[in-house]
């Protein structure tokens, strides 16, 4: 298929076929056009050929009548002897002429029938009808002609009876003889044949021939026209394809602006079409002339004319094919708009206006837009008094305004939603800016850029946090191995007998510190894991009451060892939350361990659970042993403890771990310090 499309031979063939078929179609078309008269008229006598022939006859007859009048006059003068000496020769010539006319108009030589009457219709002056024939029945259509005879000169009168010249004009001396008013009735029978050879039989034969061959011409025209069309379609299909080239190949034609090219081509086509039709008309009229039709050389002239018309038609079709071809190529190459001058001018203007509006400051846009709107509205309202059309336009303007406002409002809504989402923490979110008003889009794009930057920064931070966590984990793994040895050998030392009594004391310090080191490394790993979120969290429905019971069971003894009393207040029934049991236990464990470490001995620890607004809040309150000279926020930072000295057993990571774990489970962790009162509140989403 592709090969066929690219074949040069096929293209040349198609062009030749197109031209040949168009030429043939033109020839047949012209012939069909000429002979179409024979189809459209009901009788051959209604053709212009007939009219011109019968007018010719009538003119000849009237001339003949005039001639015989002149001859009569001359003969009278000769008889009176007042004639010119050479008048007899004139008379002779006139007589011969008259005989020839009589010969021409005799029944045997022509189908022309006439009757010459005085204008009152009473006196029959001459006819070529038989006695028993009535002219009205003999001829197809009767023609009338009235005229006046003035001493051998004819004053023409049309069939309508108007006088062409007034009698006084024709005969200024006002001689006595009054004009003879005559009426000629004439016509041709409908049925003629070749028994009498005259122009009417000729016209009839031509008409008959046209009538019988019209179908043939039309069929020829249609067939060749179809072939032309096929060739044209082929040319359009193959246009622009070339073997060895993937895309559409442009030619010099496509360099010309399409509209310019089209105007030139259409002008040429119209001109050629007019020429063709004009030539056809000329041929028709020329064939109307009977004598031309009878002559030998006329036939070749006629054929030449027909061929010329065919060539003109073919040229027109060729121009049309060129125009359509370049159109097809441009459409295929998708450069129709680009290569059209009007389009380019329009696009340039649109771009200029667009750029102008776009770079106009927003305030000016508002002012100009509103000004334009007001002027339009006022004009339409004032004009509205005169016609409903203006009122309709006014409403259309309002609709356009409404649409514009809705567009803006929707764009603003999207911008607002996007901003809300980004502000809500989803920094990855990108506002969709398609079909947004220009000014809002600028805003949205800036916001997107900010969010991309922020997301990148956050990503970086997360990465570095994760790296830190990994580092801490690896370091603590490496710490654990020597620590294992230390713990084990300290233990062994404890079981040996020491000579120096102080040695046992020193070993005790070593033991305590190695245990603390162990706790520190464990807490360190956990804190880094919790804060970077590498821990897996499986949230499920957890009973807070149950959990507090379990936690208290773990801690009751240790707390009472330190003379701390636990007072817990739980609401009626079980309180369900969504949390990870293990992590939540670690939170409570850390809080209670904090109490055990830092609460003043002999005080009470309050543990309250409250429900409300879809949240569950657990608060742990205790009185600090040492003054809390650190703000609450600082307490949650890593390695920060209530008292700055590091003598006690805590690692300073407990609260930090508790906060990270709570946040991992979607809760919040708050601390409050009021004098010596330390309060920690864990809030979690309630489950139903």
């Amino acid at each position, binding site marked *: 298929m592709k090969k066929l499309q690219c074949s040069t031979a096929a293209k040349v063939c198609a062009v030749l076929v197109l031209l040949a078929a168009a030429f043939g179609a033109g020839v047949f078309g012209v012939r069909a056009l000429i002979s179409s008269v024979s189809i459209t008229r009901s009788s051959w006598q209604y053709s212009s050929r007939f009219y011109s022939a019968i007018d010719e006859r009538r003119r000849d007859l009237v001339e003949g009548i005039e001639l015989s009048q002149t001859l009569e006059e001359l003969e009278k003068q000769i008889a009176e002897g007042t004639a010119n000496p050479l008048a007899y020769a004139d008379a002779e010539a006139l007589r011969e002429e008259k005989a020839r006319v009589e010969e021409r108009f005799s029944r045997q030589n022509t189908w022309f029938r006439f009757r010459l009457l005085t204008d009152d219709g009473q006196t029959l002056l001459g006819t070529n009808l038989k006695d028993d024939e009535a002219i009205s029945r003999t001829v197809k259509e009767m023609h009338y002609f009235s005229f006046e005879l003035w001493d051998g000169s004819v004053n023409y009168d049309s069939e309508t009876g108007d006088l062409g010249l007034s009698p006084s004009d024709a005969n200024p001396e006002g001689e006595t003889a009054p004009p003879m008013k005559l009426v000629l009735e004439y016509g041709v029978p409908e049925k003629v044949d070749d028994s009498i050879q005259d122009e009417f039989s000729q016209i009839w034969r031509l008409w008959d021939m046209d009538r019988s061959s019209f179908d043939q011409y039309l069929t020829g025209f249609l067939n060749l026209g179809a072939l032309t069309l096929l060739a044209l379609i082929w040319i359009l299909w193959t246009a622009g394809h070339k073997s060895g080239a993937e895309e559409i190949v442009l030619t010099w034609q496509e360099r010309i602006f399409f509209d310019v090219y089209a105007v030139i081509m259409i002008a040429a086509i119209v001109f050629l079409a007019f020429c063709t039709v004009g030539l056809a008309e000329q041929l028709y009229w020329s064939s109307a002339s009977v004598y031309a039709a009878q002559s030998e050389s006329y036939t070749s002239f006629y054929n030449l004319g027909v061929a010329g018309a065919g060539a003109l038609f073919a040229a027109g079709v060729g121009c049309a094919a060129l125009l359509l071809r370049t159109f097809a190529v441009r459409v295929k190459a998708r450069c129709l708009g680009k290569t059209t001058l009007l389009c380019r001018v329009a696009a340039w203007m649109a771009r200029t206006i667009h750029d102008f509006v776009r770079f106009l400051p927003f305030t000016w846009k508002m002012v100009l837009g509103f000004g334009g709107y007001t002027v339009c509205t006022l004009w339409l309202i004032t004009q509205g008094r005169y016609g409903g059309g203006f009122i309709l336009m006014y409403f259309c303007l309002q609709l356009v305004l409404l649409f514009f406002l809705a567009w803006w409002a929707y764009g603003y809504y999207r911008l607002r939603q996007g901003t809300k989402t980004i502000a809500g923490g989803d920094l990855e979110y990108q506002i969709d800016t398609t079909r947004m008003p220009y000014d809002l889009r600028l805003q949205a794009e800036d916001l997107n850029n900010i969010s991309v930057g922020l997301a990148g920064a956050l990503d970086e931070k997360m990465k570095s946090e994760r790296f830190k966590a990994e580092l801490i984990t690896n370091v603590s793994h490496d710490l654990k191995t020597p620590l294992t040895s230390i713990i084990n050998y300290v233990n062994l030392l404890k079981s040996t007998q020491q000579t120096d009594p102080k040695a046992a004391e020193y070993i005790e310090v070593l033991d305590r510190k190695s245990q603390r080191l162990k706790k520190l490394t464990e807490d360190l790993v956990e804190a880094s894991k919790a804060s970077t979120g590498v821990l897996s969290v499986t949230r499920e429905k957890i009973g807070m009451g149950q959990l507090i019971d379990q936690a208290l*069971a773990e801690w009751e003894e240790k707390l009472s060892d330190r003379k701390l009393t636990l007072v817990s207040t739980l609401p009626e029934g079980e309180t369900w939350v969504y949390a990870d049991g293990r992590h939540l236990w670690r939170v409570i464990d850390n809080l209670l361990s904090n109490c055990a470490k830092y609460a003043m001995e002999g005080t009470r620890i309050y543990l309250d659970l409250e429900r409300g607004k879809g949240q569950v809040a657990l608060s742990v309150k205790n009185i600090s042993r040492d003054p809390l000279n650190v703000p609450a926020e600082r307490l949650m930072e890593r390695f920060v403890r209530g008292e700055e000295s590091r003598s006690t057993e805590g690692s300073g990571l407990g609260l930090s771990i508790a906060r990270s774990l709570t946040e991992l489970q979607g809760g919040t962790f708050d601390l409050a310090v009021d004098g010596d009162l330390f309060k920690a509140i864990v809030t979690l989403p309630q489950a139903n």
Partner: protein
Amino acid sequence: MYTILICDDDRDIVSALDIYLTSEGYQTVKAYDGREAIRAAETHEVHLILMDIMMPELDGIRATARLREGSNVPIILLTAKSEDTDKILGLNIGADDYITKPFNPLEVIARVKSQLRRYTALGGAEKGPGLITAGPIAMDDGAKVVTVDGEPISLTPIEYNILRLLLSHPGQVFSSTQIYEQVWNDPAYGSENTVAVHIRHLREKIEINPAEPRYLKVVWGLGYKIEKGA
């Protein structure tokens, strides 16, 4: 007399463990990487292996897998990693227990004893109609005796009843309220918080390390259960 293979790339740890185990009356064989451990296990009659995970040449996990191909000697993994995934991987590959570094020597000895008792019990007590077992825990309901690794432990009646309830439904989680209602045979009106305390005591009696229980597990916020198939 039992022989224990100790394998760690840290020689100090190996000798410390050697001292503890020898003082407990065990014979020891030492190895310092996975390959040596496999060789030692082939040349000696070994009753238990203590194996570090992170070692050069052949790590503990692969060595365990290799050893498991031809032997069912108890293997306790020593690991510096405390992530659950490492423990699960070790247990899946065929280890019987694990101890995280830095460990307490007393815990090591307790676990060694536990594993050896189980390994040498050779089928243990015959399964009577009233005998309920889970891992090392065996309860003879007829005689009202509970043993862990063959060692009898003394329980209060309430602890005994709680343990029986949990043992008869291994893997099932009981909340404090359920346990209270079934053991005390009373509706629980806020008095179920005593259950938690009883279970803590029970755990201290059964488990080697009650803070990290292997058998009687705390399902935080939901209740308690006996590990299925432990």
